[in-house]
C-alpha cells in the first residue's frame, strides 16, 4: 500500500507537485494520467525517492519512505522506464539479475529466478540470455526491462511510460501481457502514461493530474461518465468518450440467449468489447450479431438495442 499525504515538490521557485494526497491499495493498478509537465512523473519518482519531496509525507506499508535507507527502499520497489535503461555492456540475463545480485541472493537462486522471469515474459532462455541489449528489438528490450523490475519479486512496481516508445502493435501486445501478468501476480502498480487508451485498458483506478494537482480520481468508468470539468472530459476523449466507455465492457456482459428469429449472419466473439461489436454492426449495416465462443460456436446474440441498453450501474 502506498499513501501520499499532502505531498508537495518544488524545484527552485517552481511548484511541480502541489499538495497531492493519494492512496494506492495493495494489489491495485493505479494509472497517473495528464498532459506532459503535469507532475505525474515527479510524483512517481518521489515514491522511490529518486526525487525527494519538499513537503508532506509518503508512506509505504504504513512507514514513511524517509525512514528507509534510500538504496534498500529502491531494491524492494520494481522500477521500469520508457527507454528501458538496460545496461548496454551486460547480457540480458545479467541485466535481469541485477537487483537479486544487489540483494546478495545465492548464485543458483538468481539463475533460477532469471530463467523463471524470462519464461514469464516470453523470452526463450537459450535465445536471449546471452544477448546484449543492442541486439534486441524495442519490444524485447522493454520485456527485459519489466523482467528486471520484477526480479526480486517486489510488492510494488513503478512504471514510467514503459510502452511510450513502442510501435502501436507491440504496445498493445505488451499491454495485454502486463494485464495478464497483473491478474496472476497482484502487484501494487503505479503506472504513468499520457496515453488515455492505455490507462483505460489497464488501470483499476485513474488519477488525472493537471498543473501539479489531482483533478479527479476513481474507477475509469466513473470518470468517463462523470468528468468533473472540461479538462478531464477532453483528456478522456471528448466526443469519443462513448466509444471508450464501450471499450471497457465485454460483449459477454450484454449478450442474450437466442430469440425466436433466425441466427444473424454476422458474428462477434463473446470476448470482444462493445465498441468492437458496434464497429462490426456499422461495417455490415446490421443491428443484430451472433455471439460465438472461442471455437466459433454460436452461444447467443447481441442486438443494437441491447448494446445501447440501460447503463448497468
Amino acid at each position: 500500500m502506498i499513501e501520499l499525504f499532502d505531498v508537495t515538490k518544488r524545484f527552485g521557485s517552481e511548484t511541480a507537485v502541489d499538495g497531492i494526497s493519494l492512496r494506492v491499495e495493495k494489489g491495485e493498478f493505479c494509472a497517473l494520467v495528464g498532459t506532459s509537465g503535469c507532475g505525474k512523473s515527479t510524483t512517481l519518482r518521489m515514491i522511490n525517492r529518486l526525487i525527494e519531496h519538499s513537503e508532506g509525507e509518503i508512506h509505504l506499508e504504513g512507514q514513511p519512505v524517509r525512514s528507509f535507507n534510500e538504496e534498500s527502499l529502491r531494491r524492494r520497489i520494481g522500477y521500469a522506464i520508457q527507454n528501458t535503461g538496460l545496461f548496454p555492456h551486460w547480457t540480458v540475463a545479467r541485466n535481469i539479475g541485477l537487483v537479486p545480485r544487489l540483494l546478495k541472493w545465492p548464485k543458483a537462486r538468481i539463475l533460477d529466478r532469471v530463467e523463471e522471469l524470462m519464461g514469464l515474459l516470453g523470452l526463450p532462455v537459450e535465445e536471449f540470455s546471452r544477448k546484449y541489449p543492442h541486439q534486441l528489438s524495442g519490444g524485447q528490450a522493454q520485456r527485459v526491462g519489466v523482467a528486471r523490475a520484477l526480479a526480486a519479486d517486489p510488492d510494488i512496481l513503478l512504471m514510467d511510460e514503459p510502452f511510450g516508445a513502442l510501435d502501436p502493435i507491440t504496445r498493445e501486445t505488451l499491454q495485454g501481457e502486463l494485464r495478464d501478468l497483473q491478474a496472476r501476480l497482484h502487484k501494487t502498480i503505479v503506472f504513468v502514461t499520457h496515453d488515455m487508451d492505455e490507462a483505460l485498458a489497464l488501470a483499476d483506478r485513474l488519477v488525472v493530474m493537471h498543473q501539479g494537482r489531482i483533478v479527479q480520481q476513481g474507477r475509469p468508468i466513473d470518470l468517463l461518465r462523470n468528468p468533473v470539468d472540461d479538462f478531464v472530459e477532453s483528456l478522456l476523449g471528448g466526443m469519443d468518450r462513448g466509444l471508450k466507455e464501450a471499450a471497457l465492457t465485454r460483449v459477454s456482459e450484454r449478450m442474450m440467449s437466442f430469440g425466436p428469429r433466425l441466427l444473424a449472419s454476422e458474428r462477434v466473439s463473446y470476448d470482444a468489447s462493445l465498441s468492437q461489436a458496434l464497429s462490426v454492426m456499422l461495417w455490415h449495416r446490421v443491428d443484430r450479431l451472433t455471439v460465438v465462443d472461442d471455437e466459433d460456436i454460436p452461444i447467443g446474440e447481441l442486438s443494437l438495442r441491447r448494446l445501447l441498453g440501460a447503463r448497468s450501474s
Partner: protein
Amino acid sequence: MSGASHTSTLHRYLAGGWALFLTRWSVPLIWLILLLLLTFGMSHMEGVFRLVEPDTREVIYRRTSFAALLGQHLLVVGVASLLAILLGVGAAIAVTRPAGRDFQPMVAQLASIGQTFPPVAVLALAVPALGFGTLPIIVALLLYGLLPIVRNTLAGLSGIDAGVREAARGMGMTGGQILRQVELPLAAPVILAGIRTSVTINIATAAIGATVGASNLGDPIISGIVNGNTAYIVQGAVLIGLLAITIDSLFDRLQRHRPLST
C-alpha cells in the same frame, strides 16, 4: 549461464592459444622486437652511422648504454603517466559526482592551462625548486599529460545514456556500485583513448629532460646538438620514435580488444 559453452571457449582458446595470441598482438610485437634489436645492436652499427658522420672520430653514443637510457626513459614516462592517470581520472570522477559538480569547469580549465604551458617552461621553473635530475621532468610530463586524460574521462562519463544512470539509481545501486559497475566500464574506451594520447605525447616530450640532467633517450640528441654530431641525434630520435610507435600500437590493440562484444 551455460557453463558448458563457456568451458569450450576456454578449450579453444588454450588449444590455439599461442597462435591466437601472436595474431592478435603481432603488430606491437614486431615494433617491440625492432626496438630491442636497435637498442642492443646500435653499438655494432658503426658502419651505417659512419655514412652520416664520415669526419667525426666517434659515431656511436657511448656515454651510457642505450638499454639503460631506454629503461630510464620508460621509468620517467611510466611514473609521470601513472600519476597523470591517477590524478586525471580521479579528478574527473570527483567533479562528476553530485558533491563535486561545481568544480567541473575549474578542473577542465586547470587541465587546459597545464597543457598550454610549455614543458620547457615548466622545467625551467621546476629546477630551482626540485633541483636537477629526474624529478622536474616527471612534474613537467605530469602537467603536460593531464589534459587529454581529464578531458576524455569527462567526455566518457558524461556520454553515458541518462536512462542507464536513472535505471541504475532506480534499481537501488549505490553511488560506488554505479561508478564501478556501470560508469567506468562504459566510459573505458574513451578514457583509454585519452591515456593513449597522453602517454604517446609524453614519450616524445620526455627527451627534453636531458637538458636538466635526467638521463634518458634525449641524452644522445642533446649531446648530438651540442657537439654537432648528427649520428647521435639520429640514434636518440630513432629509438624514441620506435618506443612511441610500440606503445601506441599496444594501446591500439588494447582498445580493439573488447572481450564483451565478441
